[in-house]
């Protein structure tokens, strides 16, 4: 009996202590993440004044308006295209770099450092550099095109090329991070697997297809998820390079939210778009957990 009481007291006191250590995180998450998430859901159901105060409950009207708005459809299209342009090419590039940098040769540390450089580059600084490179009159890209006798492009000013141009710069910006994660994944693969393969005398391609890629797949999958989510969240490069133009061709979802909320002061409409962004990313994350779980059974 006495023991039991004692035990109970310990549990209670450790509940207090545990919560005390967790309190800063819980408070901050509550104020700056969970509360605003619910508030966004709430505001998306209202018409709001310019200060963001709900004025009238309108149910799903904001969403209906969005799905009938050509401008929002352009934005969805731009966002999905942006994911499509940046993710596959970005991953393949990072994978090639990681495979090259995983060879143990002299001076490899230098190349690893160079390949990861873009982690240290901010979106703002990178975008400003790419803006000059894309400059139709003085930028390097048109210099190269004219040197090899191809017609010059307007790059960021041409509605047909603007999104691809922003995507190319984004691939470059993200490569360092994906590279570093993939290199870590490669280095975690058991050396003995390669030893056995070497003894069996299999070729490079066989090793890549049957050892490296399967063993790397959890890491690869993680990088794909992070890249998709990152592409959905892109903002800085759009703001600096194109401002969502020309003709809204680069008006990706986060930029559209920013413009509606803080330039057009339509907080309800912006919140509705934020809710859709939330569900998109939730979907990708859940997919990651599900497929990630299934993978464990394979092994």
């Amino acid at each position, binding site marked *: 009996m006495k023991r039991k009481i004692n035990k109970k007291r310990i*549990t209670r006191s*450790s509940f207090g*202590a*545990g919560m005390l*250590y*967790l309190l*800063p*995180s819980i408070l*901050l*998450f509550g*104020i*700056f*993440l*969970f*509360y*605003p*998430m619910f*508030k*966004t859901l709430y*505001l998306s159901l209202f018409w709001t004044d310019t200060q*963001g105060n709900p004025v009238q409950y309108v149910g799903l009207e904001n969403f209906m308006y969005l799905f009938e708005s050509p401008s929002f459809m352009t934005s969805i299209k731009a966002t999905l295209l942006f994911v499509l342009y940046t993710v596959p090419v970005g991953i393949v590039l990072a994978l090639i*770099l990681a495979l*090259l*940098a995983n060879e143990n*040769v002299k001076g490899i540390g230098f190349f690893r*450092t160079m*390949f*990861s*450089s873009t*982690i*240290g*580059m*901010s979106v*703002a*600084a990178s975008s*400003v550099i790419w*803006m*000059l*490179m894309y400059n139709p*009159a*003085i930028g*390097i890209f048109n210099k190269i095109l004219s040197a090899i006798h191809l017609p010059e492009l307007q790059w960021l000013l041409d509605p047909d090329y603007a999104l691809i141009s922003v995507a190319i710069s984004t691939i*470059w910006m993200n490569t*360092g991070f994906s590279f*570093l994660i993939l290199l*870590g*994944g490669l280095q975690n693969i058991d050396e003995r697997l390669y030893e056995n393969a070497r003894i069996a005398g299999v070729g490079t391609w066989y090793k890549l297809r049957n050892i490296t890629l399967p063993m790397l797949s*959890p890491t690869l999958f993680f990088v794909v998820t992070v890249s998709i*989510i990152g592409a*959905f*969240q892109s*903002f*800085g490069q759009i703001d600096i390079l194109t401002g969502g133009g020309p003709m809204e061709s680069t008006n990706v979802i986060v930029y559209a*939210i920013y413009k509606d909320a*803080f330039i057009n002061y339509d907080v309800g409409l912006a919140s509705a778009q*934020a*809710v859709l*962004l*939330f569900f998109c990313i*939730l979907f990708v994350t859940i997919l990651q957990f599900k497929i990630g779980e299934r993978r464990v059974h394979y092994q």
Partner: protein
Amino acid sequence: MIPFKKISLYALLIFFTIVMMFPIVYAFLISFMQSGEVLEGNLWPSEFNFSNYQKAFEQVPLFKYLTNSFVVSITVTIGQLIVSSLAAYAFVFIPFKGRDIIFFLFISTMMIPWEATMIPNFFTVQNLGWLNSYAGLTIPFFALAFGTFLLRQHFKTIPKELHEAAQVSGVGRFRFFFHIVLPVSKSSLITLAIYSFLTTWNMYLWPLLITNDEKVRTVQIGIKQLQSQEVASEWGIVMAAVVIIIIPTLLLLYMSQKRLQKGLTQGAIK
């Protein structure tokens, strides 16, 4: 390795190094050019002098912006270290009822994109009177699930018996945390600090939203401002400013690339 294979490996490594480094080197070269040279589309400056760098500091309050960025980044780094390590300690060493629910709460924070919460956050910060303040730029970012998980991985390697022994001999929880757990987890703490500093230094959207004068504005917004002022003619000055703001993070990265790789891979896979 067969020489041919080795040579082609190096050729590829060098080729991709040129591709990846080109924009950075380009910015560096342009930063020494006068406007006429840039307009001609030259790649190599006629002389290396620092007049553009000097002008960059004169055109916008670049020094003030740099200071602001340092203050903000260091504050967020320290804040994240404190808040995350406290939480990680509770998750590893203090078993209590409901801990799993809270752990799930931490995981669920990773599913909420920050951009989906920025509108109410803006109004919260406005109501707190934190627009244009260091508080508004830093405090909302102190809690970090990734940081908590990263530290938790390391804390888990500390034997539980050590904790029990400390409790039996009357060493308080906080003393154990401060004098044992933190010192032995130094390497993870440093990894997290580097990660925090890099991400905060490079933050763009939030400072854009909540700062509207130079008092606390960070360099990232400063470079946008300079670029939109000078875009017509003075690319050399703009690139000088770019070089100045990337130097701190590039140096940090070059010093810590190995450590960062280990930390990120751990946080990513486990």
